[in-house]
Structure formats: C-alpha cells, structure tokens
C-alpha cells in the first residue's frame, strides 16, 4: 500500500524531521518510563487520598491537576517518537507502519482487558471500602486510561531503530 499523496496536517507533523530526536529508542523508552511512573504516582495518590477520612482534598486536587497537565507534553513526545502510528489515518501509513501498529495492538490486547477489568473492580472496591465515590471514579479512570496507553508504550518500546539518513 502507498503513502497518501496528500498526507494530513497531523501526518505531516508526525513526519517532521525537527522531531527526529524523539525517535531515538533511548528517548522513546524514557518517555514510556516517565509516563508509566507518572500514572503510577497518580494511582498511588488516589489510593492514599481514599484511605483518609476527608477523601477529596486540596492536596489531591493539586496533585491530580499537575499530573494530568504533565501528561500532555509527555504523551506528545512519546507520540512523536512513534510517528503517531496509532493516531494517524491508515491511508497515511505504509505496510510496515501498519504492521507495527497491529503487532502492538495484538500484543497488548489481553493486558488492556485485564486493566479495564481492574479499573471497574478497583472503583467498586474503593466505594465499598471507603465510600469515596469521586476518588473511586478517579481510580477507575486512571486504570482505564492506562489500559489505553499500553499499546503506545509497547510500540514505543519495541519499534526498531531508524536509519539516520534516508538520502543515502
């Protein structure tokens, strides 16, 4: 299959060579680790807040807001590193890029289902044990969100190293 003769603005952005530095395996893997650590910290903060009497508090609100805002540049960097393969129109991808996306989707299928199940059961458990409904929703959202990111992390971690110069 061919690359679309008129790639979308999004595809052109992901292919922009100004962001070539994000495609080095070391940068991609660091982005995965940073994103996973941030989400783990947010999950831990949610569990810690739900263990308190007050539940939703100012410190938790601050942590949640900062964490969610930090995810935006972090995920943008990670997505640039994988050329946005999972977000672009399939017509702007060639057969190898589509193959990489499909491989990551199938590799992370069951872990994603397991995390989605954990999101539901985790939220139910928080309500049952503490009665904090908002925090239960926060925990459920974080785990569900993480399940969606697994495919991105797998692709960023396993994508092969690119050639430095295609003009050769």
């Amino acid at each position, binding site marked *: 299959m*061919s690359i679309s003769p008129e790639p979308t603005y999004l595809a052109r952005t992901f292919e922009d060579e100004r962001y070539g530095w994000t495609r080095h395996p070391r940068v991609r893997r660091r982005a995965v680790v940073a994103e996973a650590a941030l989400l783990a910290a947010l999950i831990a903060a949610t569990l810690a807040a739900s263990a308190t009497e007050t539940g939703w508090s100012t410190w938790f609100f601050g942590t949640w807001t900062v964490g969610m805002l930090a995810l935006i540049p972090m995920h943008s960097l990670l997505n640039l590193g994988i050329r946005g393969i999972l977000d672009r129109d399939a017509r702007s991808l060639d*057969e*190898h890029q*589509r*193959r990489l996306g499909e491989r990551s989707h199938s590799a992370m299928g069951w872990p994603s289902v397991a995390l989605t199940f954990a999101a539901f059961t985790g939220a139910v458990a928080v309500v049952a044990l503490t009665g904090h409904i908002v925090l239960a929703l926060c925990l459920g959202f974080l785990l569900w969100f993480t399940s969606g990111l697994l495919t991105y992390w797998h692709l960023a971690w396993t994508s092969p190293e690119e050639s430095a110069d*295609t*003009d*050769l």
Partner: protein
Amino acid sequence: MGRQPKSEADKVHDRIGVLRADRGVSRKELAEAVGVHPQTIGYVERGEYSPSLALALRIARYFDLPVEAVFSLDPLPSLSQELLRRTS
C-alpha cells in the same frame, strides 16, 4: 502485508542496497517511487522486515529486474562473485 522475520531461516535476502548504489538512487527516491516510507526501505535492506509480495514486485519493477534477481530466500551471492562465475 509483510512481516518481521522471526528467525534467520525466515529472512528474505535482497540486493536493494547494491542496486541503489549502482543506479545512484537514494532510499527516499526509491521509497517515493514504490509508495512506502523511506525508513521501510531501510528495514527491508537490513532484513528487519520482509516486504509484502506487492511491495517486492514494485521494487523489482522499479529496477526493471525480475523479482528473484532482487529478493531471495537464500543469501544472495555478491554481484562481483556472480560476474566472476559467469566470465570464467
């Protein structure tokens, strides 16, 4: 669609690099001609990706050669060895 080779026996060998050098064609130019990303040509050349039949045929057609002259399941002899064999 093509795939990543799982073992050495699974690998598709090719002469794309040699042919590109011989014809003075860059990866980018070849990629544009056959409708793939330039990085994909690099992966095929390095044996990290086995192209689909359609892509293999398009590459062979670009070089105006039969597909078996460009791709092989067995390691391809170097062109100099091939020439030597034919002239001796």
